[in-house]
């Protein structure tokens, strides 16, 4: 993975800044439009060292579609996680054994790995404690899962397949 910032990441981040500026100033106006373009160009030029991770897979519209579908899937997972938390908290006696296990990912890019770790934190019963090069250290509340293959199959695999569609 090279450290150079490519043109596509420039373009993606410019697009994102511009959309966020338009969201901030909701009643769309021609003055706000021009100011937004100017400001997002300036910010992309200032923070060009920061934007090196910001690359999606080449067919942009397809990967954007997969990204949105992934966000909807993540919201559903958050809802399940909350119901799980409610079930644990409201039960009269709490008996949980928690472990920290490791597993390896196949994802290479910074964006993919960080999205994977953050969504593992938001799903039921898991919390990512540490990320070193390829391996994730996950804190699990379930007692049944102990072996790393189990963790990989049940927790990491469904996210990884969906992330692979839009990121490396």
């Amino acid at each position, binding site marked *: 993975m090279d450290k150079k910032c490519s043109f596509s990441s420039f373009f993606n981040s410019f697009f994102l800044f511009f959309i966020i*500026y338009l969201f901030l100033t909701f009643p769309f106006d021609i*003055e706000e439009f021009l100011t937004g373009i100017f400001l997002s160009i300036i*910010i992309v030029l200032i923070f060009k060292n920061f934007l090196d991770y910001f690359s999606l897979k080449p067919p942009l519209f397809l990967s954007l579609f997969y990204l949105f579908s992934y966000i909807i899937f993540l919201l559903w997972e958050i809802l399940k996680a909350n119901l799980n938390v409610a079930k644990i908290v409201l039960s009269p006696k709490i008996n949980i054994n928690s472990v920290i296990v490791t597993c390896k990912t196949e994802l290479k890019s910074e964006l993919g790995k960080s999205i994977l770790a953050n969504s593992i934190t938001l799903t039921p019963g898991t919390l990512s404690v540490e990320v070193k090069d390829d391996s994730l250290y996950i804190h699990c509340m379930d007692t049944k899962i102990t072996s790393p293959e189990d963790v990989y199959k049940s927790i990491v695999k469904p996210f990884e397949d969906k992330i692979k569609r839009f990121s490396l």
Partner: protein
Amino acid sequence: MRESDFNVGKFFAFLFVLILFLFMLSPLFEEGDGAKIDKNLSDIKNRVSYFHSLKSVKEIERILSDNNDFSKYREITDSAKTVIFGESKDLENGTANLVTSIVLDYRGFDTLGELIVLFISILGLTIILSTLSFAKFEEPSFLQITGVKFVTPFMILVGIYIFLHGHLSPGGGFPAGAIIATATLFSLIGCKFNYRVSNLKFIESNAGFFVILLATLGLYFTGSFFGNYLPTGIVGKLYSSSLILIIYSLVGLKVGAELSVGIKTLYNGEKDDDR
């Protein structure tokens, strides 16, 4: 500090601060007419800041002791009823936010005093702490680095949005500067991004210089410090209130750069980063 980086802008800023200081002291020594202010009370509709200029304190006391009814001054608020949002133009200030017009136009000295207080405190901080040694921090993890890389440009964008819309919505220069300084703090702790302090110093000194320059030009054109001499646009648009927009964005840049320098100095001694 190298002696070779003599900056013309810094010299002019110093000169203007000196002139301003003399101007602020002048009413103590002389008794006479103000610079261009009319003493006629009927003109008070045009310039409310007549009350707040330093010259006319005795005058106001005399007026208030003569007749105690404030019905004359209520005419100003009555004329504000005819302002239509998005249509009427060429008002006195052109701001949709009343607080901004008070802070930056009628009471411009207030903002200037706040800027000077902040400047002096940051100056003392950097002078005291520049002798201390380097402090070690924990290495940030992978997730923190990517998160900070993602969030910092957006925080800067939100800060710029807040000081650009200071005359339309709540906010303004000082909160925007605080938000920008928080963004630099995040990028210092989270991903060890090394700012160049010389750039921040350049931004800070030039923004302060231009604030004072524009305000003093107001003294020449309208007769009061921080007077609004450029034409004001339609109320509610982005580019509506001419001078207030410019001065508030300059104030935001100045405060952001100043607080960032202070945080950088607290993070490690000042000697380490001049490169």
